[in-house]
């Protein structure tokens, strides 16, 4: 169990080009389909809490999943696993990176990587919305309110340049007023 936890987040840390949000599909795949550690709804809540808290989202998810699975030790191991690959890479290859960053083939690989990162995040958004209940065949008033909250949140992030924390806080209050 601890070994699986460590190995899984080591993998996440190793391929997290373009950062945390692009890693949500991989985390979902491993936790839900491979290890069956929790249900989709529970993982969606962990992602939500991780998004609310400061710090890198992938590390935050690792800490929460690790803690729920194996307490403090699990949390520490999972966090260590996420940061270890990039840490090792920086120590080992920091100088090499400076030299090869502008190499045409490396630049070409990153051109492709950056594009698929967009695809990964789009997929993460859609599958998260599905788990959060925004995407059902039989929408009721609760679903419509959620869709309205989604649209309102996106609007305030893009056009009103509101801080994510403020948007989450307001959304929580709206939720209590609506569904409470």
């Amino acid at each position: 169990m601890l070994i699986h936890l460590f190995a899984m987040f080591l993998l996440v840390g190793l391929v997290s080009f373009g950062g945390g949000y692009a890693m949500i599909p991989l985390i979902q795949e491993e936790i839900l389909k491979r290890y069956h550690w929790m249900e989709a709804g529970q993982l969606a809540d962990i992602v939500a809490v991780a998004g609310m808290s400061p710090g890198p989202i992938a590390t935050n998810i690792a800490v929460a999943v690790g803690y729920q699975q194996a307490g403090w030790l699990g949390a520490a191991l999972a966090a260590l696993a996420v940061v270890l690959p990039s840490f090792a890479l920086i120590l080992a290859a920091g100088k090499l990176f400076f030299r090869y960053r502008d190499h045409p083939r490396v630049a070409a690989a990153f051109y492709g990587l950056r594009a698929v990162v967009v695809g990964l995040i789009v997929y993460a958004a859609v599958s998260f919305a599905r788990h959060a209940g925004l995407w059902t065949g039989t929408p009721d008033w609760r679903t419509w309110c959620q869709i309205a909250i989604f649209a309102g949140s996106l609007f305030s992030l893009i056009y009103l340049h509101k801080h994510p924390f403020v948007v989450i806080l307001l959304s929580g209050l709206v939720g209590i007023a609506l569904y409470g």
Partner: protein
Amino acid sequence: MTDKRKLHLSLFLVFLKMSPFTFGGGYALIPAIEREVVEKKQWLREEEIADLFAVSGTVPGAVAANSAAFIGYRIGGVSGAIAALLGICLPTFLLMIVLSIFYVQFKDNPKIEAAFTAIRATVAALIAFAAIKVARSSIVDFASGALAAAAALLLFTGIHPLWVVALGATAGILWVQFRGMKGKSPKIKEKEPVFDYMI
């Protein structure tokens, strides 16, 4: 306390102080690191740190943690890197544990449940917002747009995300080579570096 110890402690404290501000996207963090490391402590020069940030964004992982490790390494070697990384990770680590405990305790409380029904919708919006921001800098031409769309479609068919990452790197190299053979060179540079989504 030896000088080395002092340096490690002060590296740890500098990043410890910044950690709680790496919120949802580290807009605030890069200027804050510059202010502390270049102006106040004078550990590094302005040009050095710009290069550091660029490389931190290229290595996998969160840019905040990467730059902390990188700066620590430059100033204090491996132990300096560990001190800086611990500093940037510790506060958010503890906060995340507190939030997890809080969530497990109160998730069945009707008020919290109600708040989370709405917050989940907002988090979906946060992820969509991240996608838009990254797309703005990464989708530079038709080919990269098509590649992004293909990646999303493949994911919906249930392919493992790792294959998509591998496909991205391979397709990038092949496409640039193909264009090169036809005598054209595509724009493979990012329009502008995006740091906040990497946090």
